[in-house]
């Protein structure tokens, strides 16, 4: 379908990533095919967003528009939002409830399950026109994805029985692994309610964000607010934990496991970061109300390729990476709370929303960091990154955050799916 890709990795541990991989049209097209439509589980939506039969939401897998829909059977289905007739977008709203989905162009009609149930003038009129007698609507439904739910988190895969990737697709259970299962279950011990959405359009390649989510080195340097208020800093107990294949990762930290003095000493020589620079008048909203038995105040499991689940203190969210061409992507964030939260807790979570999202005190910087990296790497395509924090060679979990190991893990799995692994490349 696309021309074979050839990548000369400067090192077999993915500590050097050629810049052209962020800027190449063929690479991008191949990523859509081999990654997003390949043998992976993509985050779709949350079950709580579709409480009733007929409820639907449009989402994105790579650059494919996908409708997630609760059928009349109560089961959640997902199908490509592209009419089987002439390729038009069928569902044009972001969400809603419908008994059927009708393409406006020629009014072809689909069920909540994505089956073609109506073709106007199929039998013609007064013996004239119409579809051929052997036209079989069953063959012209919307393309279905495989859908599975884990604790109310809905994942979808294009690797269905008819596709080539099916043989390589693990069950969702195996794909998440013990690592992913444990972490997702941690967030969904109680029913949730949806607080709303954030969208952020960043002018950079989507992989820069996949790296950013696995980059614990930058967090307490770029985001000084983190450091000042002890939300996340290198002096705290914490670390990175990956699945066996190093494609998923979790950054985590425990607030209150270091002192302000320790942090001052550690950051004294780090240019640009000052532990005590910021003096807020009202710090009430920063209060951390412990609600998980593990005591973590920051937990951010990232599931390859498009999903992040994130707790920063008492703010809770999912994030989905939605590529928009090779030079942009949207971060789609769904803020949630627990259904049995008190009104005070809801307000507290909403105030902590100030920390996260496009305007977040500890997150806004990523938009700028990614854009400047994208902008300048485009000018030297044959050069490469240097990813050595935490060491070279094998990719391992750590009990500290001064590491870029999980970024190399991402590239290792990316290279496997893209069929461009380095000779003898680490996994």
């Amino acid at each position, binding site marked *: 379908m696309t021309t074979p890709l050839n990548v000369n990795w400067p090192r077999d541990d993915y500590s050097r990533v050629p810049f052209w991989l962020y800027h190449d049209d063929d690479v991008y097209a191949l990523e859509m095919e081999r990654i997003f439509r390949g043998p992976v589980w993509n985050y779709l939506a949350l079950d709580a967003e579709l409480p009733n039969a007929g409820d639907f939401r449009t989402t994105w897998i790579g650059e494919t528009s996908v409708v997630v829909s609760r059928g009349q059977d109560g089961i959640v289905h997902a199908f490509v939002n592209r009419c089987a007739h002439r390729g038009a977008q069928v569902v044009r709203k972001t969400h809603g409830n419908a008994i059927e989905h009708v393409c406006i162009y020629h009014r072809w009609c689909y069920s909540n399950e994505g089956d073609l149930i109506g073709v106007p003038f199929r039998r013609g009129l007064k013996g004239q026109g119409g579809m051929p007698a052997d036209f079989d609507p069953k063959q012209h439904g919307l393309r279905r994805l495989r859908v599975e739910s884990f604790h109310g988190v809905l994942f979808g895969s294009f690797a269905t029985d008819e596709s080539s990737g099916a043989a390589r697709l693990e069950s969702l259970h195996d794909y998440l692994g013990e690592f992913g299962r444990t972490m997702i279950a941690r967030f969904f011990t109680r029913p949730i309610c949806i607080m709303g959405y954030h969208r952020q359009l960043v002018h950079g390649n989507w992989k820069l964000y996949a790296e950013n989510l696995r980059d614990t080195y930058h967090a307490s340097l770029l985001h000084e607010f983190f450091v000042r208020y002890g939300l996340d800093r290198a002096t705290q107990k914490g670390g990175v934990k990956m699945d066996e294949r190093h494609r998923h990762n979790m950054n985590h930290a425990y607030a209150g496991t270091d002192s302000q003095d320790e942090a001052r000493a550690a950051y004294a020589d780090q240019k640009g970061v000052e532990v005590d620079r910021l003096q807020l008048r009202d710090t009430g909203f920063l209060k951390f109300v412990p609600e998980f038995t593990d005591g973590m105040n920051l937990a951010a499991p990232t599931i390859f390729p498009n999903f992040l689940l994130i707790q920063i203190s008492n703010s809770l969210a999912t994030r989905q990476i939605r590529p928009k061409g090779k030079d942009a992507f949207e971060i789609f964030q769904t803020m949630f709370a627990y259904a049995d939260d008190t009104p005070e807790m809801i307000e507290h979570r909403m105030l902590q929303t*100030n920390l996260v*999202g496009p305007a977040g005190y500890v997150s806004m910087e990523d938009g700028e960091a990614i854009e400047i990296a994208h902008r300048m790497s485009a000018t030297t395509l044959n050069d490469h990154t240097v990813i050595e924090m935490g060491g070279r060679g094998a990719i391992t979990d750590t009990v500290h955050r001064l590491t870029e190991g999980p970024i190399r893990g991402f590239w290792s799995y990316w290279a496997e799916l893209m069929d461009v692994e380095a000779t003898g490349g680490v996994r």
Partner: protein
Amino acid sequence: MDETKRQAIRDLLIEYGLLLDDDKLEAWVELFTADCDYRIVTRENVEQNLPNVLIWCKGKNMLADRITSYRHVNEYNLHWDCHTISPPRIAAEADGSWRVAASYSLFQTTLEGQSRLFSVGRYRARVVFNDNAPRIREMVVVADTGSILTLLATPI
């Protein structure tokens, strides 16, 4: 009397936009009451009755903190802001406060002079008079532009 106050509210809104555009953010904070409520929300959430916020400052201290953090700690795309604000609709409320609504367009310009449309939406405000000076007690910025370009660091 009524027209004097209406004119004062119109002037307040002009001042609001120009202070932001002139980077006089600390002076902009002074247009609010001590117990103010300032939010930036998106139309996508509002139309679904979802309470999610982009920014929520409950009280003038939190609003001032936003500016302090912007000045000293946060990193962002270096830019200038330019607001265009429509003539407001102004309605007197029974409690002596005023309901104010207006549309805005916000353009951002890089330090090398390239401009882009950054956000459009509505202001929904509640204005009160303290010693004949109008102050904003409540400001809900409802952004139609829910897909924030790059990031949101400066107030709308």
